[in-house]
């Protein structure tokens, strides 16, 4: 029998054959007969009253078939739509725009060119209104009110932990550090922008939606709920998510363009395509971060004791975050990180401003990046304040391996961990003590070199149904496996790959459980008509949820297979022993039936009293989240003339539990690290006082290229999750979450002797040079 290549094999990615040959099918490859094209006219103002839309100016363009405005949609009660956080956002404004680049009208035309010309030709009269950009200003009495339907700009106050106990503990500390930090707005900037093709069949009353969505099933339900009053029903809606060129959280929300294309298809009776361009993607789609954090961390006799985080969260004009419903600040309360500390309190105040709506993740599990940034910066500061090396301080204060499962002060039960082992491995790999010696020599010569550590703990795999839901739908996920008579299989999932390699890793899980080689297993996702219901792929949840479902469904098949094998072998079920790929009779290993024999018999010779066929489905409700972790060490050199930070080395030791496909894991970490150093050094979307966006195209939104990316040095430890069927934890986001504070800590370390205690991100050359100049350390050569 061929080796089944289950867990631990770097199987070549099955999906790559089509991707590298240009045979992937992305949203813009969907072309339907008679299709129309939709483009969107957008607001030049961050806040303005629309006094008139001159629809005739767009209609005058050759090929323009229709102009849709907020007033058109209002007639169908579609001008507003609900967000995942129980807020609402405009599909199109009826009278007022709330941010620059907001959708103002949709132009439907017979070609993409005509639609673009129509959008450019549309004349709109505006009366500009006062703008509020800074969330702190927005909270002051008398501030310009962003939302006419709300009493103030304050959206919510959320807090968690023991406030009084934490204050008391901080008061009892001998050392307390305090620091403000801002994690600016950034954008996932996936290589494929968002888009859709809506195809309404008026005869059947059926809607097919091809969508760039990470969560096709949830989207179908949302569409059914918001269009029920128009007569659409869930069984008449089919959402198809084709190949996706990167999601990272940005393809979880419903964007106005999707609704507009759908409305346009219903109105015209023709398929309508909307494909966003790069500027629209960066300027109007959901952003990530934008947390203003005030952090306090205290220690007593060198032991970390208490953490307090107070946070102002800028959500733009609507809370369109994509969090589980009960978590307005996501999983921010993982903020105690890898440290054994007894007292913690976190609070978040959400604020409206005249900016695009959002608060989605950027390759992280709901605000974990913000939490990790805060704790890893603060631990570094506290170590220094205690006069201790940041590595030694961490090693002393980590949660110890024997403390797992560990109850955190903020209520999580960490499943497993060995934090010291990961950090020590990273220190060995990079030669930590040698680097410290080199740094001392360089410092004596006036050169700037720094070493930074980040020992993060993630929280992924949302989530257990008792606390995790989105709009009431529990956050389980699913696998449905059907074995064909010849022993080949098809497996369908409620998740949706955006490049993660599901077609390979899921097949490997099934291979491990059933002994069918991965190439014999067809994996499908993304079609709501065929795949079982699931909540989709984000927050590193696919392996913890749908991957577990693959295991459980496989085991159900194996148990039915046992009955069939017993029938074929004329043996008692209890006497059969499973060995990967076959059952044999205890004591007689040559009396065996392979999974392929069993599959054939399931259709040709099944035992009487047993149903024919060999298939199973699992909706897996995880008992807990998983807690991947790791230690990263970054070494930087700083050019005193230009302020440029160069990452010389970056060692990443990751522990994601059991590794299914080590090559894919390494690839996830490579990509994640690149997306991790990006906000530390390059990426930011900012606004001027009038709410004009900067960073709205790739000239200004600086995504790292291969040239800015250092050589990654990867290491691993393996601490299985005790509650996951195969011990896996999820790895898609660890590196994005863990990397930024390692870079910041390295830069602050390089500048520490000058008196620098903190750096805001992105640490652009100009920003670093300003600090050097301020401290008299800028060079002229």
């Amino acid at each position, binding site marked *: 029998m061929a080796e089944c290549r289950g867990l631990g094999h770097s199987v070549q990615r099955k999906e790559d054959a089509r991707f590298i040959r240009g045979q992937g099918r992305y949203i813009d490859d969907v072309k339907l007969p008679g299709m129309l094209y939709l483009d969107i006219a957008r607001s030049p103002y961050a806040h303005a009253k629309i006094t008139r839309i001159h629809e005739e100016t767009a209609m005058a363009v050759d090929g323009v078939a229709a102009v849709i405005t907020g007033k058109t949609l209002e007639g169908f009660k579609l001008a507003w739509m609900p967000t995942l956080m129980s807020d609402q956002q405009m599909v199109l404004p009826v009278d007022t725009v709330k941010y620059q680049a907001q959708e103002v009208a949709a132009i439907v035309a017979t070609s*993409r*060119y005509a639609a*673009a*010309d129509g959008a*450019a030709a549309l004349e709109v009269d505006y009366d500009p209104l006062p703008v509020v950009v800074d969330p702190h200003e927005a909270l002051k009495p008398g501030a310009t009110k962003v939302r006419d339907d709300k009493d103030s700009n304050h959206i919510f106050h959320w807090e968690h932990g023991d406030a009084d106990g934490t204050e008391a503990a901080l008061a009892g500390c001998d050392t307390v550090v305090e620091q403000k930090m801002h994690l600016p707005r950034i954008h996932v900037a996936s290589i494929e922008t968002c888009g859709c093709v809506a195809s309404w069949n008026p005869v059947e009353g059926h809607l097919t939606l091809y969508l760039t969505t990470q969560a096709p099933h949830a989207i179908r339900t949302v569409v059914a709920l918001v269009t029920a009053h128009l007569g659409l029903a869930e069984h008449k809606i089919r959402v198809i998510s084709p190949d996706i060129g990167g999601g990272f959280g940005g393809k979880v929300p419903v964007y106005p363009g999707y609704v507009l294309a759908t409305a346009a298809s219903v109105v015209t009776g023709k398929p309508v395509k909307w494909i966003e*361009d*790069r*500027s629209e993607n960066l300027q109007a789609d959901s952003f990530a971060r934008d947390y203003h954090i005030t952090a306090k961390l205290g220690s007593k006799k060198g032991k970390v004791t208490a953490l307090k985080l107070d946070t102002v969260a800028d959500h733009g004009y609507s809370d369109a975050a994509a969090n589980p419903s009960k978590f307005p600040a996501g999983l921010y309360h993982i903020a105690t990180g890898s440290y054994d500390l007894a007292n913690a309190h976190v609070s978040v105040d959400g604020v409206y401003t005249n900016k695009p709506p959002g608060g989605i993740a950027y390759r992280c599990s709901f605000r974990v990046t913000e939490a990790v940034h805060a704790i890893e910066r603060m631990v570094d500061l506290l170590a220094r304040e205690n006069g201790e090396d940041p590595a030694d301080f961490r090693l002393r204060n980590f949660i110890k391996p024997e403390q797992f499962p560990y109850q955190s002060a903020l209520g999580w039960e960490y499943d497993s961990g060995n934090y010291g082992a990961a950090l020590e491995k990273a220190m060995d790999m990079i030669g930590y003590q040698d680097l410290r010696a080199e740094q001392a020599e360089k410092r004596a010569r006036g050169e700037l070199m720094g070493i930074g550590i980040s020992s993060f703990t993630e929280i992924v795999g949302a989530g257990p149904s008792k606390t995790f839901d989105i709009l009431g739908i529990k956050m389980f996920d699913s696998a449905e496996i059907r074995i064909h008579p010849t022993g080949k299989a098809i497996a369908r999932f409620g998740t949706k790959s955006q490049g993660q390699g599901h077609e390979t890793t899921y097949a490997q899980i099934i291979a491990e459980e059933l002994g069918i080689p991965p190439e014999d297993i067809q994996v499908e996702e993304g079609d709501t008509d065929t795949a079982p219901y699931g909540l989709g792929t984000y927050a590193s949840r696919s392996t913890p949820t749908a991957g577990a479902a693959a295991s459980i469904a496989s085991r159900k098949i194996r148990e039915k297979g046992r009955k069939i094998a017993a029938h074929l072998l004329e043996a008692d079920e209890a006497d059969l022993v499973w060995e990967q790929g076959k059952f044999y009779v205890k004591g007689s290993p040559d009396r065996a039936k392979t999974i392929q024999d069993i599959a054939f018999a399931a259709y040709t010779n099944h035992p009487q009293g047993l149903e024919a066929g060999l298939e199973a489905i699992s909706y897996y409700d995880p008992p807990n989240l998983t807690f991947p972790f790791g230690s990263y060490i970054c070494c930087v050199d700083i050019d005193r*003339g*230009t*302020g*440029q930070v160069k990452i010389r080395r970056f060692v990443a030791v990751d522990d994601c539990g059991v590794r299914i496909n080590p090559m894919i894991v390494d690839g996830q970490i490579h990509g994640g690290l690149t997306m991790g150093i990006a906000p530390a050094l*390059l990426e930011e979307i900012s606004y001027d006082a009038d709410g004009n966006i*900067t*960073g709205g*195209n790739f*000239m*200004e939104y*600086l995504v*790292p*290229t291969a*040239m*800015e990316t250092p050589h990654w040095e990867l290491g691993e430890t393996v601490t299985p999750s005790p509650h996951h069927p195969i011990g896996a934890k999820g790895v898609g986001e660890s590196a994005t979450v863990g990397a930024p504070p390692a870079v910041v800590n390295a830069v602050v370390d390089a500048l520490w002797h000058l008196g620098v205690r903190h750096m805001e991100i992105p640490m*652009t*050359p*100009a920003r670093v*040079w*300003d600090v050097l*100049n301020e401290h008299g350390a*800028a*060079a*002229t*050569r």
Partner: protein
Amino acid sequence: MIPPSFDYHAPDTLEEASRLLLANPEAKLLAGGHSLIPMMRFRLAEPAALVDLRRIPGLSGIREEGGSLCIGAMTCESALEKSDLVQSRYPLLADTTRVIADPVVRNLATVGGNVAHADPGNDHPATMLAYRASFVASGPSGRRTIAASDFFTGPFSTCLEEGEILTEIRIPEAGPGSGGAYQKFERKVGDYAVAAVAVQLQLDGGRVAGAGVALTNVGLTAIQAGAAEAALVGSDGGDAALDAAAEAAAAAADPADDHRGSADYKRAVVRVLTHRAASSALARAREAS
């Protein structure tokens, strides 16, 4: 990202191209297209017509002739990168072409387009000023040669007349004791410079006999830093001279605050890069002596 509609012409001769430009005042010349087409896609430029130069013979090539390195205006950047002549004898030009955008762009973008587009952020204008290059243009009233120092009249504007087309760039032929360097500082590869400095030196008996110093993206046009040149000429190229030149270059810069940094920062970068470029140019000139 979709431009408005436009007419497209691809004439076979320079005369025909000039005629088309004169007949269509809203027309634009298309060379490599890597500045113009993005501007059209953003609808920042909406030319009524494009006059594509690609079919006109004789507009590309690199050769030494009559005391000059002659570069056809339609020569693409990657041709400079692959040219042994440029790589071995014209280090300032070799440095410059290597830091323009990225390899994919350099396969199509042209030297003439980079110069004639006259974007203060483009890299060749400063290099050509430092080289004391001249430009050959052809138009309705015939051919003329224009000194680089007379060519750039403002952001995105040159002294080319209506219907006039840049055809060739001439750089004085490299001789013994000459050397140059281009130092560009950018936020990421492919970005326009925060600041960049071109330095071209001529040594004679161990002393600097001639110097060209010019700056990229710190003013409305590329800036020739005459005082920095003066600080170098006659010196032995020691640190004091380099520091003086760097200081003078920083003073000559006229940058604005923007996302790449404050004016003060950019001036500081000019100072640092001038020192570094001059050091490198000196080393190369000594090697070529």
